């Protein structure tokens, strides 16, 4: 099997799990370890992408530009990437991140809306960035639709397109179909980004590799939105056992996960009722903390909010619907809002 390129997104997806509280010192320490361990790409930005510091997504405590700057300064071999969601970020933030020295831009949209990415792929290429397309909530569409959307991104200048299991809702057959369809349709690379709501983050990532994926994602100790991601250190251990030589130092990653990431966690990430119901209903993972907030405020259950959001087919960026659902559920129960 070919050697995949690993992107560690502890400092981006993990940003949701720490409620956007990363400090420049933490970023420096984590980037230093990942870089020394030989992780080739490190993603740093607000969890919802550049300029994501909002009420809807959660305000960052430290400016993400300061964090990106520290990451760029610290990394000796690793490329620094940022996530970009059109509408949350605009060309202005894209340019600013490029100026700070990121090398890779990962442009994320709901997996049916690839045509809103054109202006940003073109700009990123103009600025000399490597580009990755991120088809979020890939479980909601069949492989054929994802392949069409991925082809659009390829035509705009993407160097790679990811199948992104934002809700952690895919099982292995679903991953295989989707990654294979993209491999067949595209002449560029294909990636896979997992979430662990069904306990399949590592398994699905390996399935993606078997189906031909060129790039995969992980986060130290699985620190990511909701149920978290494929833990980078576990992924490297598994790849070693499979005799896939990533050249990444497992010992450094284990130490970083244990000593630097575990202490940042408000509580260990487990597949509890909230995370399982979110994955089972196919709800975007970064909704979790917002759902908990709304459940408490309006006196309704986390699982019932998740279920209704799944029914309404909410997409990434629709945290406001959580409040709407919570209010409606409360009213139905006769709770005074």
């Amino acid at each position, binding site marked *: 099997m070919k050697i995949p390129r690993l992107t560690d997104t502890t400092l981006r997806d993990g940003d949701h799990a720490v409620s956007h509280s990363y400090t420049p010192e933490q970023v420096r320490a984590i980037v230093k370890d990942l870089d020394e361990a030989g992780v080739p790409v490190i993603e740093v930005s607000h969890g919802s992408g550049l300029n994501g510091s909002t009420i809807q997504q959660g305000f960052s405590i430290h400016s993400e530009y300061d964090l990106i700057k520290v990451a760029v300064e610290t990394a000796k071999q690793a490329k620094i990437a940022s996530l970009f969601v059109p509408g949350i970020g605009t060309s202005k933030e894209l340019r600013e991140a490029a100026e700070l020295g990121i090398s890779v831009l990962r442009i994320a949209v709901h997996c049916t809306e690839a045509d809103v990415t054109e202006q940003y792929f073109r700009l990123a290429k103009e600025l000399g960035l490597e580009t990755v397309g991120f088809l979020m909530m890939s479980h909601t569409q069949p492989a054929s639709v994802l392949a069409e959307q991925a082809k659009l991104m390829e035509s705009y200048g993407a160097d790679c397109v990811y199948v992104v299991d934002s809700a952690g809702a895919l099982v292995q057959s679903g991953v295989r179909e989707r990654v294979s369809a993209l491999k067949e349709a595209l002449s560029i690379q294909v990636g896979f980004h997992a979430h662990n709501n069904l306990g399949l983050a590592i398994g699905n990532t390996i399935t993606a590799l078997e189906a031909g994926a060129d790039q995969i994602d992980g986060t130290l100790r699985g620190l990511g939105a909701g149920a978290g991601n494929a833990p980078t250190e576990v992924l490297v251990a598994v790849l070693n056992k499979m005799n896939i030589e990533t050249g990444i130092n497992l010992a450094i990653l284990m130490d970083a996960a244990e000593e630097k990431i575990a202490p940042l966690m408000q509580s260990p990430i487990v597949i509890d009722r909230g995370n399982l119901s979110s994955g089972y209903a196919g709800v975007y993972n970064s909704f979790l903390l917002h759902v908990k907030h709304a459940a408490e405020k309006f006196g309704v259950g986390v699982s019932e909010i998740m279920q209704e959001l799944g029914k309404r087919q909410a*997409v990434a960026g629709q945290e406001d619907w959580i409040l709407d659902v919570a209010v409606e559920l409360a009213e139905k129960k006769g709770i005074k809002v």
Partner: protein
Amino acid sequence: MYKILKNDGNMELALVTGIDSNSEGLARAREKGIATSHHGIEAILEDSEIKIVFDATSAKAHKLNAPVLREQGKVAVDMTPAAIGPFVVPTVNLHDHLEAMNVNLISCGGQATTPLVHAVNRIVQVHYAEVIATAASLSIGPGTRQNVDEFVRTTANAVQQIGGASIARAIPVFNPAEPPINMTNSVYAVIKEEFDEAAVIESVQSIAAEISSYVPGYRLKGAPFVDYRETPWGRLPTVVIMNEVIGAGDFFPTYAGNLDIMTASAYRVGDVYAGHYLSAKEVTR
């Protein structure tokens, strides 16, 4: 077009013009017995009787059309993001711009949310406003899709200028759910000082009622409420307002409330202008 034909207002529909003689819009206008042309703005310039022009082309085209229309004394109601003239929202500032020759309607999200921010701001200063405008994917045309930046910039500017917020953000969301969702908007208004919650809620409800007089499908989803949020300015009360816009179904399907609120607002602006000119004429007589 349908709104002018359906309502017994101050305007008379003289011409529908486009650049594609086979377009569905022009065909529908012909069916209704309305004069049509596929020579674009030229056809408008040939008719000196036309006083009000609704421009739903593109920002680029409107930049060319605007000076020509002005030269001929025709008022332009600009439905593109060109924003050459002042932003207008019928419930907030239309009467400040009755003599303007070019006014801009911001965006669908802007028409839906800036009056809500204004309604809070007339009771207590809004420090930061964030509006989330969500529409069905099917109702978002290629123009918007190719230029999301423009929507974001124009709408956020209007939330500051018309809404009165000191700082503003606007975020569009496109949702492809089947069946298609109605347009929904959320407003978060962060307040830094003590305020009368009941007065804010009443102010928002009354402006929503006013808007629904010209956009019948416009309503609040539940009463506005206050939620405390961690912000860069500390833990602050945030007024949360949720709104839904169901279209009239004149031309676009009812879920496309985002398109309907633009045409309904444009109609309202045109009708008020026409009424203003007619009454001015009577005075001079």
